């Protein structure tokens, strides 16, 4: 049956090639940009590319975040019909793809000045876009993966202002809890929403080298000093900070809960802005502040947690020339501005100033500019099982399910059982 259909397909191809000298090219792009303003912007860019390149059609294969990173992408990479271009997170996933031979080397294509159209930090060591000086990932967005969003009217009702220190933050939570509000809503059934925030808090309280050693399984988390961030999580739990159903709730319903005023604060990434149109009632007033300073004496006390995301051209792309052309098109000024306006911070030079950023994104860009360090989320930097184990430990402490000490013990036992890299 397969043989017959293959033969039929081959015949059909031959016929097509004979009938039209310029055979149509179908560019396959897979990504998880599945909703909101981002999807609209991406669709527009694709349409513009098709208009500018007659004969090339773009086929988008879209998944939701979680399915994309769990099974969606790997299934396609393993299949015989690989995507020409695929979305990927900078850091560990890109590195793994490069080693496995999926990611195509774009260094040569970048050499003609394309590279210089990005901000300098886009390809700096540690940016997670290159391996051994070879560029594999074309960055498209700078995502702040966690910051605190708050409901301005409820803050005002309770005479609160965005806290600057951890103690002020705890005090504000207690005021809100006493007033019968749910201070913080998080939808943590996939563990990364709270895990990301807890990692940011860890990066603010654990020395960078120790932090790195723990996630690389070179030291136990206890030795590296992870009791402190877990204790902070426990403090939040004791102050009654979180929604009761955090461990069963999805990330999206939690965001919806924030926009429906079911809670006062919501720790999540910069992409929240893109969902405002879909979810918020007209006139909904919200703002954003970074995780309050925990210990001003430590370096990186004003760090921001974030990552770059972008696209990789598959090493065995069926249409490499068209794929590169698309990636150049996507990161050219006009398109980057269009993309950025949908609620993303572009790593393309000059775009942040020119794009009409929503006021919330402007604040985000300013926060990035004022940060003294950039922390990347563990699940895109280190092996996923280790990152997820820390996320779960944080959830234990934050939900009151286990004390910080017990959560830490659980974490080291769990990670200890994993094979060492």
């Amino acid at each position: 049956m397969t043989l017959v259909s293959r033969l039929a397909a081959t015949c059909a191809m031959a016929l097509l090639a004979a009938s039209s000298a310029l055979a149509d090219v179908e560019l396959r792009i897979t990504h998880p940009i599945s909703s909101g303003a981002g999807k609209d912007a991406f669709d527009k860019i694709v349409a513009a590319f098709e208009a500018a390149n007659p004969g090339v059609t773009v086929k988008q294969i879209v998944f939701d975040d979680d399915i994309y990173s769990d099974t969606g992408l790997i299934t396609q990479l393993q299949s015989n019909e690989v995507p020409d271009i695929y979305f990927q997170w900078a850091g560990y996933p890109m590195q793994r793809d490069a080693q496995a031979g999926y990611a195509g080397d774009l260094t040569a294509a970048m050499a003609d000045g394309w590279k210089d159209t990005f901000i300098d930090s886009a390809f700096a060591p540690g940016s997670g876009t290159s391996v051994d000086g070879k560029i594999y990932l074309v960055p498209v967005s700078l995502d702040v993966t966690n910051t605190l969003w708050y409901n301005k009217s409820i803050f005002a009702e309770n005479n609160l202002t965005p806290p600057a220190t951890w103690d002020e933050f705890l005090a504000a939570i207690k005021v809100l809890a006493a007033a019968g509000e749910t201070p913080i809503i998080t939808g943590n059934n996939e563990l990364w929403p709270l895990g990301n925030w807890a990692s940011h808090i860890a990066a603010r309280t654990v020395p960078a080298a120790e932090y790195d050693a723990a996630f690389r399984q070179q030291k136990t988390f206890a030795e590296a000093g992870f009791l402190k961030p877990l204790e902070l999580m426990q403090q939040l739990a004791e102050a009654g900070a979180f929604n009761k159903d955090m461990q069963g709730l999805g990330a999206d319903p939690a965001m919806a809960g924030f926009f429906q005023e079911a809670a006062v604060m919501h720790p999540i990434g910069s992409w929240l802005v893109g969902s405002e149109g879909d979810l918020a009632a007209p006139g909904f007033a919200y703002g954003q502040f970074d995780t309050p300073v925990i210990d001003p004496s430590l370096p990186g006390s004003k760090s921001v947690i974030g990552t770059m995301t972008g696209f990789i051209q598959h090493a065995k792309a069926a249409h490499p020339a068209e794929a590169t052309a698309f990636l150049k098109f996507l990161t050219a000024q006009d398109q980057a501005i269009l993309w950025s306006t949908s609620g993303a911070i572009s790593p393309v030079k000059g775009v942040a100033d020119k794009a009409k950023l929503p006021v919330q994104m402007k604040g985000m860009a300013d926060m990035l500019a004022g940060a003294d360090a950039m922390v990347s989320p563990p699940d895109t930097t280190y092996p996923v099982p280790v990152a997820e184990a820390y996320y779960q430990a944080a959830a234990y402490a934050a939900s009151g399910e286990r004390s910080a000490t017990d959560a830490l013990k659980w974490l080291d036992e769990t990670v200890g059982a994993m094979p060492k890299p």
Partner: protein
Amino acid sequence: MSATDRRSGTEWLQLTLGGAIVCAMFYPAVWMVLSAFKTNREIFKHPFALPADWKWSNFAEAWDKGGLGGMYLNSLIVTAAAVTLTVCLATAAAFAFSRLEFPGRRWLYRLLLVGLLLPPPVVAIPLFAILRDLGLLNTLTALILAGTAWSLSLTIFILQGYFNSIRPDMEEAAMLEGANIWQIFRDISVPMVWPSMLTLAIVNTISIWNELMFALLFTVDDDKRTLPVGLIRFFGRYSTDYAMVFAALTITTLPILALYFLLQRHVIAGLSATAID
């Protein structure tokens, strides 16, 4: 007199108790359909009320937004092909196992029973690798063949039991008259078990139509997704647009529910006749 009274008393109890339980269990389905006609606000404010205004437009919107049309077609193709294959191959095999002798008969039958005990996730990963090597990943063919293979054990098992419950007199008579085995199978045995084949076709339709894991792992393209995967995806994307989710649920569920109620008598009677004992 008293005996009749008691019987009707028991029957009243049966009717009220049974009715109450059945209604409670059926209510979520009713609630789903009613909610599909409401606005989001109404779903939360008046969860139990009838829709104030029947919003038929929800369905059109869900159909368009979710691209449900293509998925319907895929589900139809996969289900029709896999069910046909399953029932045909299983009937032939069940016929052979119960009427014919051949080398390795007992051994093959036992091997087949292994499939009855294994949960599909057990082979998800190696099956993934095999489909990749065969170049079937991301094709509807993969879902059809894998779906069929995993339905065969139970179908053969039940059909074989049914064959065994009928004496092979007719077949033996035809044999004496000089008919060959293929003719006997086609003209005597198949018509004989036809009702059971139909029942098993319906049962397999339900399970393959609803199959999730294979579809999730083995297909990725938008245009190759089946309804259960599409629904999960739809739920992820519109997780907060409740009216939309209920509309999509209703659209995808009603046809199979309707089919079932249409053939209900047949399903239950058929399952009873072939009851696994």
